[in-house]
């Protein structure tokens, strides 16, 4: 285990674990505190998996006592994690298409593994058929110039930036960045705060394109038993038989049109 602070209150943690073997981009783990009075696992999405798939990387913001404890963990410490949880992004929906990967704030980390896998896939499809090449554009929104993971993302494709204070890239949000750069896509993959996801849902509906968005909700079990983390669905859900899907096990990624956010 190794850890460093890559932006104010944003920590970058690598955990050695065989769970890394079959991680899909967009999946998450439940991380347990050592404080015996804080019991529930903290759901944190997976940012990246190392080359030999023996360790996974999470990038999280200090958001309370639990993550505060995490930030104090030292290299070599043993930690408890539950996972791998959730279904991740449906890569196949983007293959051979023009793809937007949109991330906002602490929703950016999961987009890295996704960008990486698309990049790998792009090379491959390119070899097969020139026209069917996957074209990935990353659009990332930050508060300010503390653009954590910037260099990591830039290895895997074009990255456009938006910052609330305008210090880097477009002043505004990720949708402002799209307009300013006059770029379009056939499909969107996104993770970030709810207002951003709502805006992306609306944008995708205008454009008549699908948007796969990763949702978050307070969780207890993380495995689909407690029904704590649900999202309202347009149709009756196959499992719950009501208009609710479980974010932890049916998600966290949903096609924007299927959920009411």
């Amino acid at each position: 285990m190794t850890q460093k602070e890559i932006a104010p209150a944003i920590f970058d943690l690598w955990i050695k674990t065989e769970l890394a073997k079959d991680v899909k981009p967009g999946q998450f783990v439940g991380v347990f505190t050592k404080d015996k009075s804080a019991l529930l696992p903290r759901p944190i999405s997976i940012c990246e998996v190392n080359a030999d798939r023996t360790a996974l990387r999470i990038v999280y913001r200090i958001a309370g006592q639990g993550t505060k404890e995490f930030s104090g963990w030292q290299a070599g410490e043993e930690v408890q994690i539950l996972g791998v949880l959730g279904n991740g992004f449906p890569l196949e929906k983007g293959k051979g298409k023009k793809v937007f990967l949109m991330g906002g704030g602490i929703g950016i980390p999961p987009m890295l593994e996704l960008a990486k896998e698309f990049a790998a896939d792009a090379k491959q499809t390119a070899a097969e058929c020139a026209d069917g090449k996957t074209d990935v554009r990353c659009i990332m929104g930050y508060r300010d110039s503390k653009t954590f993971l910037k260099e990591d993302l830039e290895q895997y494709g074009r990255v456009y930036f938006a910052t609330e204070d305008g210090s880097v890239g477009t002043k505004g949000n990720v949708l402002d960045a799209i307009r300013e750069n006059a770029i379009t896509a056939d499909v969107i993959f996104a993770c970030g705060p709810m207002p951003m996801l709502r805006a992306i849902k609306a944008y995708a509906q205008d454009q008549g394109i699908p948007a796969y968005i990763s949702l978050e909700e307070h969780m207890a079990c993380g495995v689909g038993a407690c029904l704590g983390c649900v999202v309202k669905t347009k149709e009756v859900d196959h499992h719950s038989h009501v208009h609710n899907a479980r974010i932890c096990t049916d998600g966290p990624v949903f096609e924007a049109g299927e959920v009411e956010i």
Partner: protein
Amino acid sequence: MSENNQNVNMTAGANAENWAPDLRTRIAGVEFQNPVMTASGTFGSGMEYGEFVDLNRLGAVVTKGVANVPWPGNPTPRVAEVYGGMLNAIGLQNPGIDVFMERDIPFLKQYEKTKIIVNVCGKSVQDYVDVVERLGEEPAVALLEINVSCPNVKEGAIAFGQKADALYNITSELKKHAKQPIMMKLSPNVTDITEMARAAEAAGADALSLINTITGMKIDIHRRKFAIANKTGGMSGPAIKPIAVRMVYQVAQAVKLPILGMGGIATAEDAIEFILAGASAVSVGAMNFVNPYATVEILEGIENYMRQYHVEKLKDLIGAVR
């Protein structure tokens, strides 16, 4: 000087031999292979935990509450962590009895050693009656736990669980329609739980389970908002254990009915505390979320304790502290 929680025998377990204690226990004429069960609502119908624990090792699976029709439950956030536990206001979301009979029961029947206890909820007496009658068609269901104590649904439920006369009425009504024995699940949010226990006993209940969650609240002081959309939620977890043990003890002294004890059980020591207080079996609830292996670890811990102190039969421990 020595610390409060003193225990001179702590290490004795190490040198105990390896015989197998008799873990069997009975509730309302139903025999269970061991006393470790799951608390309704924390374990679904077991499907989600099958990859962690061998369901065949549990005394019983107590299912998530099921109603006559699908219930959508409450808005989110539905859960919040608190010191030593959590609050939940799921609102008894469930797919309804039809789906439950087709999907969940057949799944649970695969585990022949483990008994099936179905938690029944409703908004009116008739709702409960409908579910109880449907379940009567299924002999694989060993016992019905009647949820009259969910603090998170506006109508029904808790209304039956906080007034002795209401509890008496629904109990006697369900007794008329139930093929299986019925176990009334009591609310801790009452002045005198023994009064409720006596009412259930007088109305013909076959067993009691306690405690359900304790109504709590959490406020996010930075957002100045309730942590749970429902404002209040049911509190569970190790933090509430002493309250639960007290109520199990009081009820065990007040009535003759067998008790399924629960409330913050995290370890075998906790489970044994409930059994010594008078519980014939115990349910593990929120701790399944913290440690998916909790049920089986607790089962093994109880066995080790019985070996350490040479207790041959579990029933010798039930209510042994008075």
